[in-house]
């Protein structure tokens, strides 16, 4: 097994775990946690391909990963703000009880 294969398999495992959390858990915050894990798996892929690619001195993949980390932070802030707003409105964060968007 080459090192790149090992890193990509690890990223696939983290992505599958994040997808499993997002699809099976009932609480909205945990679904956001699953989405964060999937984003992290994508970042790991970017950095692994940057390091094992033909031109690592160009820094392209690592820059992409750094911007992706910044965007993920913004996404987490907006997502948790939405969860808090919904909780104030409906007193629940249970996804199975979130059946309507209208106020």
């Amino acid at each position, binding site marked *: 097994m080459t090192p790149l294969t090992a890193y*990509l398999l690890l990223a696939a495992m*983290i992505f599958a775990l994040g*997808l*499993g959390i997002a699809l099976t858990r009932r609480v909205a915050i945990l679904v956001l946690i699953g989405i964060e894990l999937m984003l992290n798996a994508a970042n790991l892929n970017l950095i692994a391909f940057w390091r094992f690619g033909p031109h690592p001195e160009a820094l392209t993949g690592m820059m992409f990963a750094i911007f992706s980390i910044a965007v993920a932070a913004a996404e987490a*802030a907006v997502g*948790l703000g*939405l969860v808090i707003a919904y909780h104030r409105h409906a007193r629940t964060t249970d996804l*199975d009880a979130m059946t309507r968007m209208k106020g």
Partner: protein
Amino acid sequence: MIHGVGLPFFLASMITLIGALAAATMRNLVHCALSLTVAFGGLALIYLQLDAQFAGFAQILVYIGAVAILVVFAILLTRGVGTTLIHVYAQKWILGLLLAAGVFALLGWAVLTSIPRVAAPEIAVPTVLTIGQSLMHDYVLPLEITAVLLTVALIGAVIVAMPEFKKNGGAE
């Protein structure tokens, strides 16, 4: 830096996977958030092994320092400490589990059948100086757009989470 599949890689990947698995299975929400922090730390270790020091420390600073704390704050604001859930999983959880396993099988098959044998080219580890120079030369437009996006997203998050005000100015 060692780029083989050695003991450091296995340790870091075990830390990451155990943290993610604990976040997937634990019943207490705060415990889930804390094990998520462990998973983020393991990923930072892997970034450090891949010569991406700046990305590793950004991962520690942003994910462990900000996102995990934000998740804990959201849990405390919406539920309170120590509540254990009765219904942890969604009604059709087996469907989600099958879908996740299918995605993992597909990704693993694609990785194992298509990756050519490559060795990591020797490079000088990128320093903060080179990263800063390329941020200011090649990537200055994405940097500015990210700055605008962060400002807009944080103001939007505050407005979304703020209590609604009625027309006559009183709080709800």
